[in-house]
């Protein structure tokens, strides 16, 4: 087990390195330098700026410096968005907000999605199942921004039950969390339904039935526990989805999280911020995937450890 964890951890670190490398070289494909679009700098000022940020050195040296700085936890400074501010500070300030929303969103998605999927599986081909199936298929077909904007029009603009933007009151969390969790909730419900149905057709359930066990024990002790395993594998991608989904949600509801910073950085072409945020988010998602994978193997002893 220890060897396996170490191996997976090594692979994750390597992937983060690849992601950082891809990001660095993509960002250097951009024509011109970060100061180009600003008001006319004189030659000497430009040179001084380039020297200050190390942009006059060859690409490979810049790359090395960037990686070394990354290892020290230094993402560089913002050129445009908030001039000369450390990107690390910006991330530390805004990420907790996004993380809080995301964590609630994930919790909500799981707590609603699993029961919905179970009900659908129990009442297979009855009206409850049909309703849940239609709704969840619609749920995975509606883009996040549509859910965000329509729920905002309906509940905040027309009915005025909830605030439209910001995070001042506790009620203002409701809409962002709902929109963030809508897609994963539907996805989990579909996943849960099919894995529950799969579990019900397994031999151990038939054996349990033959032994005369109650429906309650069969469902909760045997079927549910085994059908939760696919949900665990989905948790990794779910973290990724929630973080990227926050770009839209924070934009629509005007929440000062990392997602909105990222979108702002994109529209202002603040390359250092884009780069820093991308690497940070990528590393976070990759590590979360790693945790999920390890969890998955821990929960289900049938899965072979070691080489795949």
């Amino acid at each position, binding site marked *: 087990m220890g060897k396996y964890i170490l191996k997976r951890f090594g692979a994750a670190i390597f992937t983060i390195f690849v992601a950082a490398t891809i990001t660095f070289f993509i960002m250097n494909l951009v024509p011109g330098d970060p100061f180009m679009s600003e008001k006319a700098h004189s030659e000497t000022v430009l040179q001084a700026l380039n020297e200050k940020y190390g942009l006059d050195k060859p690409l490979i040296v810049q790359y090395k410096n960037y990686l070394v700085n990354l290892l020290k936890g230094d993402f560089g400074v913002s050129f445009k968005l908030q001039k000369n501010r450390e990107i690390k500070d910006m991330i530390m300030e805004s990420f907790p907000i996004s993380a809080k929303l995301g964590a609630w969103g994930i919790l909500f998605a799981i707590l609603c999605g699993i029961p919905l999927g179970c009900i659908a599986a129990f009442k297979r081909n009855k009206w409850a199942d049909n309703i849940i199936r239609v709704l969840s298929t619609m749920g995975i077909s509606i*883009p996040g921004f549509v859910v965000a904007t329509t729920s905002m*029009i309906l509940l905040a603009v027309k009915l005025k039950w909830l605030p439209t933007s910001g995070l001042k009151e506790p009620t203002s969390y409701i809409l962002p969390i709902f929109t963030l969790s809508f897609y994963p909730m539907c996805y989990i419900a579909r996943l849960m339904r099919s894995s529950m149905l799969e579990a019900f057709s397994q031999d151990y359930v038939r054996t349990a039935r033959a032994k005369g066990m109650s429906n309650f024990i069969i469902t909760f002790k045997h079927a549910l526990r085994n059908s939760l395993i696919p949900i665990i594998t989905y948790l990794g991608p779910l973290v990724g989805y929630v973080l*990227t989904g926050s770009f839209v949600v924070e934009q629509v509801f005007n929440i000062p999280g990392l997602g909105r910073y990222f979108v702002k950085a994109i529209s202002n072409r603040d390359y250092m911020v884009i780069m820093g945020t*991308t690497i940070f988010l990528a590393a976070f998602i990759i590590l979360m995937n790693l945790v999920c994978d390890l969890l998955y193997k821990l929960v289900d002893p049938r899965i072979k450890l070691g080489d795949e």
Partner: protein
Amino acid sequence: MKLQDLKKLSLQMNLSPEDFAPADTQEQQDLNKLTQNTSYWNDAWRRLKQNKIAMIALFVIILFILFAFVGPLLSPYTYDQQIRGDENMAPNIKHPFGTDLHGRDLLVRVMVGSRISLIIGIGSALIVLLIGSIYGAVSGLFGGIVDNLMMRFVEILYSVPDILIIILLQIVIKEPLENAFNQGSLFGGLQKLGPGIVAIFIVYGLLYWVGMARIVRGQVLQLKQMEYVNAANAIGASKSRLIKKHLLPNCIGTLIVTTMLQIPSAIFTEAFLSFLGLGVSAPMASLGSLAADALNGIQSYPYRLLFPAGAISIIILAFNLFGDGLRDALDPKLKK
């Protein structure tokens, strides 16, 4: 015929001597019909036709294709035409979907936006199909160290969060493409699409084929064990012939289903990018960018959001449902 009355036992049936008479020609022909061969496609089409939801979805898709490609030709306005005096109109007879703050007809813009969504969905699905199936087939067929290396590469690409890299590439590719297009040298037909869409195609070609490659490889690994592949090998067929003639045609069902399900996900991603302001550039409209534009005046003009948002949701839903139906029809083993 009494013999078809299967629920009864033989003694309950009251048979008469005529029931044992030899079958006449008509009956013989009927029996022959039953044993007629059905091809894979006929069989799949029969299964698909029985699936009501999938047929409705197909109908909706066809309607949308007409709406998106024929619709703009019938409209008196063009998507970038700014009609003076018609600014900020609510839906009315002249403009069924209303107009935006520049006086552009929203119906035409939604049509053009749907066209972009469809082009992107189908185009990128084809790109993914091409790259993914070749990559997967080569990796699966060659096996050994080649397979190992190729799949390691896929694993790395797979675990890098794709949406982030897509955003990055989209930012970076768009500007040089715009410049290249303005000089207007080599691209020809692509130029009509605009740099935003071409950038999305490139991004899909670079990143999104990994899922397809994995699926195809899995299939090829199974098919490789078959006798006919062995036989083809024995009479000296080349690897490329094996892939083209034997391996890919035999996983055609999986290929079609995966490609079909790729379409809604590509449309999804494009809408997401356009909503963030990264997709097509103005005055071109995509459903995502129309929704993003509508966000500014959402308090006073909520219907501006309604139409593009509804259109994109219906398109994706229809493709998802049709893809599911197609999967059940072409590959009944996959059905859960």
